[in-house]
Every structure is written in structure tokens, then in C-alpha cells.
């Protein structure tokens, strides 16, 4: 996993067939905040997309490739100080090439990302 233990840490996970909920902790000392942005640490949206991919890989037990994203809405700005802990909810339905994935990143306060797309099994 590319960003696990580098950008985030998984602290809990529950799976039930095609569904999974993972509790993650954002690592405030992650190197990425040196550059995004200097003096203003904000989660890069694309890192949260990678987190969804890695949690889906955990759920399905497969190595995955994001072949398409139908829609991904970034509904609030996330940062380790605003949302140190997040829940990633995933539904992964088997499809022709791999999985049709719907995911949501949220905490008790807000939804940060809503995601729908196809992932191919590598």
C-alpha cells in the first residue's frame, strides 16, 4: 500500500460481504503537508482517493487499478486538524473488469468525499 502508514493509519475495520467500514487516522506529520500547502496543511483530495483504493483492496483482497471515476465529489476541505479520524465506507460490487465501487469519507460532523467508479483487478 502506497500511502498506508505514510499518510494515514487504519485503526479499525469491519467487513460484511461487499461492504466495509474502515476507521482511519490521518498522520499530521506526513511529508505531504510540506508541500500541500507550505504553512497551511490541507489533505490533497487525490490522497483521499488513494485511501479509498487501498481500503477497497483491503476489503476485496485484490490489487486494484482505478480504470475510471464516474464521479467524485469533494464536499468539504479535510485536514489532520479538522478531521484527525475519518470513516471510509465502501461498497464494492463485482463487475466485468473488477469492481464497481461506491465510497464515502466522513466523520461525525461532515461528509468529505463521495466516490463512484470502476476498479480493475491487476
Amino acid at each position: 500500500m502506497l500511502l498506508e502508514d505514510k499518510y494515514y493509519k487504519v485503526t479499525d475495520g469491519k467487513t460484511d460481504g461487499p461492504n466495509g467500514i474502515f476507521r482511519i487516522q490521518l498522520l499530521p506529520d506526513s511529508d505531504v503537508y510540506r508541500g500541500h500547502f507550505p504553512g497551511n496543511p490541507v489533505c490533497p483530495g487525490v490522497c483521499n482517493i488513494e485511501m479509498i483504493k487501498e481500503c477497497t483492496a483491503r476489503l476485496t483482497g485484490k490489487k486494484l487499478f482505478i480504470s475510471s471515476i464516474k464521479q467524485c465529489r469533494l464536499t468539504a476541505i479535510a485536514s489532520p486538524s479538522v478531521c484527525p479520524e475519518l470513516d471510509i465506507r465502501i461498497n464494492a460490487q463485482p463487475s466485468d473488469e473488477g469492481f464497481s465501487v461506491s465510497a464515502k469519507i466522513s466523520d461525525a460532523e461532515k461528509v468529505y468525499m463521495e466516490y463512484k467508479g470502476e476498479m480493475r483487478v491487476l
Partner: protein
Amino acid sequence: MNYYCIENLIPQRAPIQMVDQLLEVEGRTAVTTFEIRSGNYFADEEGFMTEPGLIENIAQSASALAGYLSREAGEKETPVGYIGEIKNFHCYRCPHIGEKVQTSITLGEEVGGITLVNGEVHASGELLATTRMKIFISQNR
């Protein structure tokens, strides 16, 4: 066109700076270049820059053009862009370390701080990825 160093066009810095140069600008379209170097933040153990790196490259290319237009309009600060939505992203192949990508982007009209972006990433004439995007560009952090 006038040339600016990339640090004057986008606010992102290492390790997540994913554009090297703004190469061409014509109206609201532009081309950027980026070389995938070893140690790239999104490079996997096999030496490929994974899909989120391509999305970030497109977003920062749009941000570089927005930064260029704002410099040309006399602004002194680099605008900060946030991705609001990604739509119809397709990835055909990930570039590998040592490869140079060219990214073409087109900015739509800005409405209420939201700008529509169309982006395509090529390497050696081959289409690697394409997407539409909405970005929020703010002049103040």
C-alpha cells in the same frame, strides 16, 4: 507568452508538486510537462506513478494556467486551487519513472468561483488519462 518559474504559478511544493513547466498558453488552453522522477510521491514499488498522481497532475496543470492568467492580470499572489469534483476520469496507462508526460488542459468559464476543466495526459503521443474536473480557485488562502 511570458515565462514564469512554476513556483510562481502554483502553490504546491515537494513532495507533491506534479508539474514541472507551463509550456504553451493560448487563451484558456495550455500544455504542461512533468517528468516522473524516482521518489515520486505516487510511484509504486514497480516504478509506475499511480492514478492519483495523474489526477493531481491535471489539477495542477489547470492551477498553473489559472496562476498564469492571474499573473498576467497583475496579481502578485499565486492563487490556490482546490478540486471540487472529478467526473468521467479514465485511465488507460500509468507512466513510469523516467517518462515525461504532456498535459493539455482547457479552462471553461468561471462561475461563482468554480471553473470547469478538461484535461488529457499524453506520453510519447499515447493518451494515458483524461478527465473533467471542477476546481475552486481562490486568490486568498
